[in-house]
């Protein structure tokens, strides 16, 4: 049965390779976690369909780039606009009619979306394996033995932090950002200062879908496989990242995602008695541990209320 002798790989090159992999995948998880956090911050709802919305975006990008032969960057930008529009439509038609303060029915609606979008993708593009081209040039920035930093890995890392910067600026420096923060803090008061709550939440959904699609378009080429189930485990890693960083903190989402990537690629693979197939299990363990020990995560706000 199991051999419970703990042995840890300490080969420095291998370790460096794993750290680089962890940073690469982790920034992808962080990007999807950022999308989850945007919805959670605005509405208090965990959007279980976020990964599938991204999946739809990825397949749209695939159709434009591989199917029609357009440049991948153009294809991804188009896919981002299409999924953002779609998400805005979803918010308007099947989210807004529900009471925003009752979260359970809303979560169940996102589960229905999960099933519907997942099978829509499988029906439209079949379940055959596909490959999405990377937006970045191939090749290495540097290589040390087995460890190498690829241009795509570096590009991904930079893109994700640029995205975080853009979201932070949007939230703190623009009027729609102020409306977004006001709505997430107190819906009734937001209405009373003249903010159109529905439209603000719609904007949140569109933005989250756009972020999610970009996250998928960054991550899927690195995973080197595209099928309708590709976002399933990714969503679990992203949830773990969001929980670790604090479910209402954009900065926490990205950092949490990267930490989860490091846990997946460095910790799980270096410690011999954890089978590497259990990396999803490690992510779930992170979620459980965070929620038990510090539910607000590393950067999240425990609701500040003083009476």
């Amino acid at each position, binding site marked *: *049965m*199991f051999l419970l002798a703990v042995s840890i790989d300490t080969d420095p090159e291998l370790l460096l390779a794993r750290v680089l992999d962890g940073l690469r995948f982790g920034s992808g998880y962080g990007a999807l976690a950022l999308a989850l956090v945007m919805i959670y911050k605005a509405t*208090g*709802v*965990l959007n*279980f369909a976020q990964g599938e919305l991204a999946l739809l975006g990825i397949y749209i990008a695939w159709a434009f780039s591989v199917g029609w032969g357009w440049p991948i960057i153009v294809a991804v930008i188009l896919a981002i606009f299409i999924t953002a529009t779609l998400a805005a439509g979803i918010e308007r038609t*099947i989210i807004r*009619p*529900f009471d925003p303060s009752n*979260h*359970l*029915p809303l*979560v*169940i*609606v996102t*589960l*229905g*979306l*999960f*099933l*519907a*979008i*997942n*099978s*829509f993708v*499988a*029906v439209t593009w*079949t*379940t055959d394996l596909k490959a999405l081209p990377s937006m970045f040039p191939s090749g290495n920035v540097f290589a040390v033995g087995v460890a190498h930093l690829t241009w795509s890995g570096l590009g991904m890392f930079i893109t994700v932090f640029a995205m975080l910067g853009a979201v932070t600026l949007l939230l703190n420096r623009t009027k729609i950002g102020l409306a977004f923060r006001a709505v997430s803090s107190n819906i009734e008061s937001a209405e009373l200062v003249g903010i159109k709550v529905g439209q603000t939440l719609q904007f949140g959904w569109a933005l989250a879908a756009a972020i999610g699609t970009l996250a998928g378009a960054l991550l899927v080429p690195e995973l080197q496989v595209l099928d309708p189930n590709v976002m*399933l*485990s990714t969503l*679990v890693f992203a*949830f*773990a990242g969001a*929980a670790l960083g604090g479910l209402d903190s954009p900065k926490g989402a990205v950092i949490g995602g990267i930490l989860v990537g490091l846990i997946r690629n460095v910790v799980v693979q270096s410690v011999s008695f954890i*089978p590497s*197939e*259990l*990396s*999803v*299990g490690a*992510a*779930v363990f992170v*979620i*459980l541990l965070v*929620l*038990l020990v510090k*539910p607000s995560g590393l950067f999240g706000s425990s609701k500040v209320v003083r009476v």
Partner: protein
Amino acid sequence: MTPRTIVEGSALHRRIQGANWSLSILLVAILPFLVAIPLKPSVFGNSYTIGLGNVNEAIAWAVAVLGLNLLTGFNGQLSLGNSFFVGTGAYLTGALVQTYHWSYLSTLVVVIPVCLAIGLIVGVPALRIQGLYLALVTFGLAAVFPTIVKLDQLDRFTNGSNGLNIESKLLPPDWMPIQGTLDAVRKIPLIGDWTGTESFSSRQSEAIYAYFLVVLIAAASFLLARNLVKSRPGRALIAIRDNEIGAEVSGINLSLYKAGAFGASALLSGIAGTMLAIDKGFVSPDDMGINFAIFLVVGLIVGGSANLKGSLIGGFAVIFVRQWATQTKEVPLLGWELNGPYGQMVLGVLLIGLMFAMPGGIAYGLTRIRARIYRVVPDIHHDGATSG
């Protein structure tokens, strides 16, 4: 039309109840013989197959939905991870039958305590995790299950990602008068003609035996759940769902009941897993993932949350709606060709639609329709004397 008022416990009421029960039991007894040779109706150019396997699967699902109902419907803890418990039950049965040559039924001796224990273990940390966070953790649980099954170390029991084929057959005992009953059913006018004229093959006899097994297990499970829900602990579960703080200050031990709800839910789910293994003779890791868990939520909502009959309806709805959608190859009148996992899409849309149109589920809708025909009122003159 004003509904007719019927006094509870009156002769008429008892006659209606008696008729309901007799009809139900008769239907349960005859049904397998009607569909053992699969019906192949053709509607608008689409041919469908309805066989006993679908019925058995639906009954197993009804028990799985029942398990979720205890936890989510009655106790208010949203679980997206009940597929973990169902999968555990299915794989335990599969491995014990395949590797250790146990009989199917005897595996329940292991499945029940193991699933109960896993449920309690999951239930304890769940005490500290509220609302949507619990959905998140259990969602992770559902995602993890297939990866555990696929572990190399367990390959010997689970056969990894290929899925576990259980070769042992479920032979009906000699005393079971399957052919005799079939002959009798064929003598019923109109209905009897459906069953054709051929004798049953051994596979069909096995399916009929499996049917009666799952019906018995399901009946026991629903009876157990009914007694639980109507008892003092059951009221405590509902009280916790409706107002946790209120329940706690009324002296209800939250930890005990919330963990207990997880245990009971896992127990029933594990039994459902055994039933699925009996029905299909095959268990696959990717069937037991997140989609399975969400289908259970579909069953819960479509049938009716916190409603026992709703679980039965929900189980059948999930299986037959999916079956119907998958077998529909062409949209009637429009001529569009369909191919792929449409069943899942329809269930997703159905879930969203039900949240809008009938949040109480089909069971609630049926109750409202019945209330338009007749209404049962308690007998105020003999209060207490007529109970029991």
